[in-house]
């Protein structure tokens, strides 16, 4: 009995103490710090190189910070770098990419979200089969479809041009690429939206029907406002995917309409003259800036959206 009472006086009480500098923590955080460093090093090299002049680069100290900071490589990459006979820099590729990106993201998300909603809430005969076929599309390698799509774009574009009596073309134009991006985004985005809408309680949909809302009424007034998080996720996926696309960009457009990634490749891989490492680095950073910004801006929105959606209605 005596032992028990001493135990009661001196034994554990309140929150358990945890040591901050335990060997476990040191190993874990040490490893994490090392891995971080390893991954950030190339970025560091790119940034410092892009801020150096060519003479300084030729010294070969790639890790040393610039002695003389110059923004000339950035300006050159943006507005003067040459690809072939064209010397407008990346700015044209940027504006092409934006012109491709905005309609592609908007159209693909709009179509996919409505499809996902219809597949969940307005089942029709064969809707499951339709969905299976759609998902199957996600597993077909792009390369298989490249040439058929070339023909489809050429023929439909030519047909539209003939009918309207204009020189409208899909092949080689921005609109052809927008269509391609929209179609290729469909399987994964529809799956994404379908799965999200499945988690919305069925009774909510039934209540809205009793309240007299139709297909579009329920979509715009009930489903859409509830689904901000998944729209942000879809937007991140599409913006980064479409912006970083190289394959479709190089095949379905022509030099005047090349997106930024293709133009970057042409600048960096040009074989004439001296290799301007600082300009190449600046050009690469400029191209990567859009996806990076999207991550930083909407990442916050994304977390907030998830948190808001977590509250039960």
């Amino acid at each position, binding site marked *: 009995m005596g032992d028990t009472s001493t135990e009661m006086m001196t034994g554990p009480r309140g929150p358990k103490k945890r040591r901050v500098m335990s060997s476990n923590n040191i190993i874990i955080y040490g490893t994490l710090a090392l891995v971080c460093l390893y991954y950030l090093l190339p970025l560091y090299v790119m940034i410092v190189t892009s801020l150096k002049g060519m003479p300084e680069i030729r010294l070969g100290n790639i890790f040393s910070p610039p002695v003389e900071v110059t923004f000339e490589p950035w300006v050159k990459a943006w507005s003067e770098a040459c690809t072939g006979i064209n010397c407008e820099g990346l700015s044209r590729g940027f504006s092409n990419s934006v012109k491709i990106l905005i309609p592609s993201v908007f159209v693909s998300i709009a179509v996919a979200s409505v499809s996902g909603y219809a597949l969940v809430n307005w089942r029709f005969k064969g809707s499951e089969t339709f969905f299976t076929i759609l998902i199957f599309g996600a597993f077909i390698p792009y390369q298989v479809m490249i040439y058929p799509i070339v023909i489809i774009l050429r023929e439909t574009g030519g047909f539209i041009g003939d009918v309207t009596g204009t020189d409208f073309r899909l092949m080689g134009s921005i609109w052809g690429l927008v269509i391609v991006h929209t179609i290729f985004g469909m399987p994964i985005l529809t799956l994404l939206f379908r799965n999200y809408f499945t988690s919305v*309680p069925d*009774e*909510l949909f*039934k*209540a*809205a*029907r*009793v*309240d*007299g*809302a139709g297909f579009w*009424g329920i979509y715009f*007034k*009930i489903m859409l*406002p*509830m689904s901000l998080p998944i729209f942000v996720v879809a937007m991140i996926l599409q913006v980064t995917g479409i912006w970083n696309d190289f394959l479709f960009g190089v095949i379905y457009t022509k030099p005047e309409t090349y997106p930024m990634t293709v133009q970057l490749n042409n600048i960096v891989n040009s074989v004439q003259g001296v290799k301007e490492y600082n300009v190449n680095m600046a050009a690469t950073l400029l191209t990567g800036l859009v996806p990076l910004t999207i991550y930083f801006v909407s990442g916050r929105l994304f977390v907030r959206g998830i948190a808001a959606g977590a*509250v*039960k*209605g």
Partner: protein
Amino acid sequence: MTDQKFSVSVKNLDLRFGSLRVLKDLNLDIHEGEFLVLLGSSGCGKSTLLNCIAGLLDITDGQIFIKGKNVTWAEPSERGIGMVFQSYALYPQMTVEGNMSFGLKNARLPKAEIKERVDRAAEVLQIEPLMKRKPAALSGGQRQRVAIGRALVRDVDVFLFDEPLSNLDAKLRADLRVELKQLHQRIKNTMIYVTHDQVEAMTLADRIAIMKDGLIQQLATPEEIYNRPSNLYVADFIGSPAMNLFKGEIANNTFSLDGLSLSLDGYDFAAPFTGTAWLGIRPEHVAIGENAAAADVQMDVTAEVVDPLGSDTLVLAHVAGERFWLRISGQADTKQGDQIRIGFSARDVSLFDAATEARL
């Protein structure tokens, strides 16, 4: 083809999901202003039937009339119904006011009328202080009140409730049950209420429809269902603990089982019967102690399990080799192992044909 005397009429309703037949040639007529409860265990088709009446499911065959109008092909919003769901189904991004006025806005009612109706419903349900809140900021009971309000503003003839109280805790459920009953007494609309809770069914209903496997087993008043269950399933389903059942032989107007023999004089037979039958007696219809002296059959049993519930006490014993529950006064000082004198008479029991399971 109009039946003006019925508020809701379901005729030969059939519903299949693939090869599964969920509702089987179901007929149901509900009177004007009646509170009808659809009761059954899960999977019996009660919610499915409600969804069919609401128009949320496409039926395979049959017709549905509401207020004498054939609404079989009508949209849910055109049927003159309001519906309340188990999960409340409030639109999370709208305020309480927005939730209640959503249906009216879809019907393009003038603003002034929407406001008037919403205000009136809010007053009836005492949710006026909550009107600017979002559903997430409401408690379960408040949410269900709002959901009822959303149905109320529609100013419809028929209200449909799909297990509206099942998500609430026991005390709130009892409170809201009483409120629902008062609401019905005040507005006198037809109400169809789905539940698996027999207490809700017994207390709220004018009539109860007990369903099993897509068929209505019995459609009658709570008293009738409790006292004169039409078949073995209903007898076993209603009452907690369930009716005590014995399988025995009826011959010469006497039910006999080893060691038990009960003269059936005084039992209200539908038709004379001889053969194998089930005898059922409710735990609360067993006479105890001195009261047992007047009964036709008397015996002593040993209390094996004693469950005090406060208001009364449940005792488990064995009679003729079968488990036998009886309900005694909560004040009786009975312990495990005690001998209890029990008795019952023919007028206390229910008899069912063992072959058809129908009431005799």
